[in-house]
């Protein structure tokens, strides 16, 4: 693995060495580069070659699974279907995402379609990081789709982070949450220049006491554009909370489209959206502690996206 690839891997995984993971699968430029399994976590290539199946056996505790994708070939469009089967009572952390280095003129694109099947009482922490770099004219495009199906009492916490270099992204997340299951999503997006990012959440709270919390924090700088839409459907006694919080700077634009649909009198659904520039009082406070205006802005945005 060369220096560029190593750096991409670090950006996506954000930890020292992939060898610390209990299982991993590295996909580089559309092909399997390296894989590790263990007795409880199986990774298999799909027969038609379109992606992998990851199977975590029931009762597996504290497994860490890394599923990074890296692209360094300009002009490549990589589409991959990964399915995660998480057994009953298993508790794992999955780190996935894609890093693109595009040094040339052609567009590089990765569409990752991830499906999660959580059995009863399974617990997953899922971290998805997207990153791109490269001085070439070629666009860097990342379109992640996540489909989540959660059985009784299961828990999934998903952090999705995209802070640098991605020119275009369309992110779709669909979830079906059953009895007593909980879905927590934290999204952090920063766009600048002419980048665009679209996010769409569609969550159905199907069973009694299902709950879902979506917190999206985003910053749109320069001439960038972001769109956030979410639709939470409550079919039973349930709790759904969506919070979309955006900071705009320069000519940045953010559009938030909320939709909540209570199909049961016991459904309790909340949508909050706030879009605006950095509060003047926050800048003044930090400047009164000795920061310049620019430094104060940076500190506020860094905290906001932390």
């Amino acid at each position, binding site marked *: 693995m060369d220096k560029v690839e190593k750096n991409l891997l670090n950006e996506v995984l954000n930890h020292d060495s992939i060898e610390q993971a209990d299982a991993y699968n590295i996909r580089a430029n559309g092909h399997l580069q390296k894989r590790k399994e263990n007795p409880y976590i199986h990774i298999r290539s799909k027969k038609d070659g379109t992606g992998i199946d990851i199977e975590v056996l029931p009762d597996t505790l504290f497994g860490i699974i890394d599923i990074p994708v890296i692209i360094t070939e300009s002009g490549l469009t990589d589409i991959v279907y990964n399915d995660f089967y998480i057994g009953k009572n298993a508790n794992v952390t999955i780190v996935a995402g894609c890093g693109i280095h595009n040094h040339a003129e052609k567009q590089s694109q990765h569409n990752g379609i991830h499906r999660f099947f959580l059995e009863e009482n399974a617990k997953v922490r899922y971290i998805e990081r997207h990153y791109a770099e490269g001085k070439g004219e070629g666009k860097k495009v990342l379109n992640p789709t996540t489909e989540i199906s959660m059985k009784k009492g299961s828990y999934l916490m998903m952090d999705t982070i995209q802070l640098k270099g991605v020119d275009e992204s369309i992110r779709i997340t669909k979830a079906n949450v059953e009895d007593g299951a909980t879905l927590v999503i934290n999204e952090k997006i920063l766009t600048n220049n002419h980048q665009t990012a679209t996010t769409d959440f569609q969550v159905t709270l199907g069973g009694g006491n299902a709950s879902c919390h979506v917190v999206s*924090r985003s910053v749109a700088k320069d001439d960038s554009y972001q769109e956030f839409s979410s639709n939470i459907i409550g079919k039973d006694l349930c709790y759904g909370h969506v919070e979309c919080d955006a900071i705009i700077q320069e000519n940045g634009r953010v559009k938030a489209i909320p939709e909540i649909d209570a199909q049961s009198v016991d459904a309790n659904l909340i949508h909050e959206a706030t879009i605006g520039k950095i509060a003047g009082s926050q800048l*003044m406070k930090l*400047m*009164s*502690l*000795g920061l310049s205006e620019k430094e104060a802005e940076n*500190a506020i945005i860094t*905290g906001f996206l932390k």
Partner: protein
Amino acid sequence: MLELIDICFTRDHKKILDHVSLQLEKEKFYAITGPNGSGKSTLAKIIMGIERPDSGRILLDGVDITEKTIDERARLGFGFAFQQPVCFKGITVYDLLKIATGKEIDKKEACSILSKVGLCALDYIDREVNNSLSGGELKRTEIATVLAREPKLAIFDEPEAGIDLWSFRSLNRVFQQLGRSNSGITLVISHQERILNIADTIILMEEGHITKMDTRENMVSCIFQEVKCCSGGEMNG
């Protein structure tokens, strides 16, 4: 010495500060008091550079600083604790203290600053500076960020609001020591007798004017007499 010369500040046709002049000496503790809406906070903000006066000048040791920005004044040693502490998203008490000191202080140092305002530090240090902190906790964090800078001119806008009696006493000691330890100026806006009682000089503001300014001995009796004879005097503003 800090000098305000003929400061005027008008908004919405209201003269919020009307030809205010004031001199503050080193190593002195000043308390500003007066009815709600009389212009105390506005005066403090003008000193810190948060508001700009429509006319008038501000001199620090004879040098005109009227045009200086907030951060330039901060670097000259000005510190200001807001009446309404500012909330942030994702910025912790520890982050704010690091910014305030301008150094990568460790948690131990941060704790020792917080203990000055009576916060049991380890419980708070990683909390976000937002409304999940109680009113008094937020207020004390705000005061701590100013103490952390060891300012030459420290301004506290109603620091005791929402602070319990027990913490109050040790806080008063901190205010008293502040000016002496670095030969600076301490300026506290307050309605509390307990604070007025430790000031060297008390300044009374009414309707955008400084109507009285004298030593504590001369002021305290007359202020509290006035309040007694025209009951609800604080409400007149």
